[in-house]
């Protein structure tokens, strides 16, 4: 290949970005409120609101299937107008319903994965510049290149 680089690189173009999802103010408010319930402020953990999730949401949501994405955006819009205590109650209901067997529990399990996934993925990826979350949980995996 005539490639003197340290690592193998095939002569292919770099990856293509998918279409950007547009988040409204209501969507972002819904994310913030959900984040406060799923990852509340704690003496060890930075609050979800400190992360500035709006900067990173596209890196996840843009890659979802269209119908999943639409469903999540509707839920976030609903959360934006719900009192936080109701969101907390909803999440508790989802955790309970997720334990039900078969198709009965399926919608709850889908919601659990979607909503916790949204918050945990942004939070635990430690995407912020100061990167404090991994150090708080003792995660220091590395590759020396």
């Amino acid at each position: 290949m005539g490639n003197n680089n340290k690592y193998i690189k095939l002569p292919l173009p770099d990856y293509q970005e998918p279409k950007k999802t547009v988040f409204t103010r209501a969507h972002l408010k819904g994310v913030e409120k959900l984040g406060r319930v799923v990852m509340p402020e704690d003496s060890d953990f930075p609050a979800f609101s400190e992360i500035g999730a709006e900067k990173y949401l596209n890196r996840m949501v843009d890659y979802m299937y269209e119908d999943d994405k639409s469903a999540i955006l509707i839920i976030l819009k609903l959360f934006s107008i719900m009192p936080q205590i109701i969101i907390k109650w909803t999440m508790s209901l989802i955790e309970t319903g997720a334990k039900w067997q078969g198709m009965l529990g399926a919608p709850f399990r889908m919601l659990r994965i979607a909503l916790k996934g949204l918050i945990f993925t942004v939070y635990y990826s430690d995407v912020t510049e100061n990167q404090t979350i991994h150090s708080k949980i003792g995660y220091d995996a590395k590759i020396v290149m």
Partner: protein
Amino acid sequence: MEKDKINSSGYDVVIVGSGCSGSFVAWKLNKAGLNCLLLEAGSYFHAESYPRKELDSNSKLYWGGGIELNTEANIGILRPKVLGGGSIVNQALLDRFDDLAFDSWTNESGIEYFNQKDLARYYDEVEEVIASQEIPAKFRNRNAAIFEQGFTNNGFQCAPLVRAQKDCKYEDGNDCVECLGGCRIDSKQSMPVTVLKDAVDNGLKIVADFEALNLSMEKGRGIVSGRFTNGESGEFSGKKIVLAASSIGNARLLLNSGFKHPMIGRKFFTHPQHMVLALYEEAVNSHKGAFQGFKSNDPNFRKSGFKLENVYAPPVAIAMLLPGFGRTHQEIMRYMSHLACVEVAVRDTNPGRITVNKAGRAIIIKSLNKEDRIRWNKGLHAIDNIFNSTGAKRIIPGSIPIGLHLMGGCSIGMDSNTAVVDQDFRMYENQDIYVTDSSLFPNAPGINPSFTIMALSIKASESIKKEF
């Protein structure tokens, strides 16, 4: 090799899917002098461009933004979408199938060559191009030590894992868990750094970021049409078509293209894997070093239809496995470095089904039957014993099993009524279309499939080559 510099027609073979199977088929046929095109829905990444954050790895390397679900939403399906497929994101385990697996395949399919002797030369050929090693004992971490100790305490048998890797530079402090998002030092023997590199050097054409949406056969030519990630449509044709886009991808493409064989999408298996975490007083640091070193090697486990492995995952995945949210969740997550993990993988017996909805999206119908649950519970019981005998303070079963060995959906067999492809890997419905990946598996072998996928793909390439 931009898409506009690549011919859309005139190929001998168009291969859909670039995982272990598609890449090996492309490599072999290219080496035999055939003009091949390899199509991949995912993007191309290399050591210096793999995503660094879990957020980006999940989004950019898997279908659906990270995870797909079965209709009951109780199995999380992880389906790679990247040039190199599973070889980029898997844990690179290499295991030959045993007699139990092959005998059950012969019984199910009626095909006689499913045995260790007849397939040995294909496994050997894979080993000539894919380096492998056991994790050296001095680089195993405490999670592995707990696994080994737990096995000893309970009289179970385990064995070191053999992984497709070389020169991981553990002595520099490298942590393999990072390579689940693509190996950044080219140690993992993924397709782009092994057979695809050779094939591209030899003239193989590759188009990434192209999702195949329709397949038709016209005047002795196969036409694959689809869409690029940027929304443009495209079409590629060849004399023969090879489907290697995984169980879900192959079934979806065939069903959306109007193929009628009643067994397309059926006999789908996943080896449902249930990760169980355990909290220890002392730090375990399961993420450090060679994070996976052992597997169960116990004849009783094999007979009972499950296996155990010592595994781990990065923080987002661990967080998703934990129960609850808020304070309940944080109370465990703050001690993430004290967590050990063992996984049970079930040799599932209840066949699932892949179908498509009106929009053409794959629907995954898969559940566990009574026998699968018995196997699962036996495995979970063994894990409890391992953790309890090694001083765990608390055992935390993962909240959702995962399926990442996606098998069946285009099963192979001698009977055209019960199988989709014949013993020469050709579809009964159209003899110019071949299926070469794990979607041809007639049932769940209960063993990591990637080594056998590569071996069978070499065998399939011989059948395809005979047609030219």
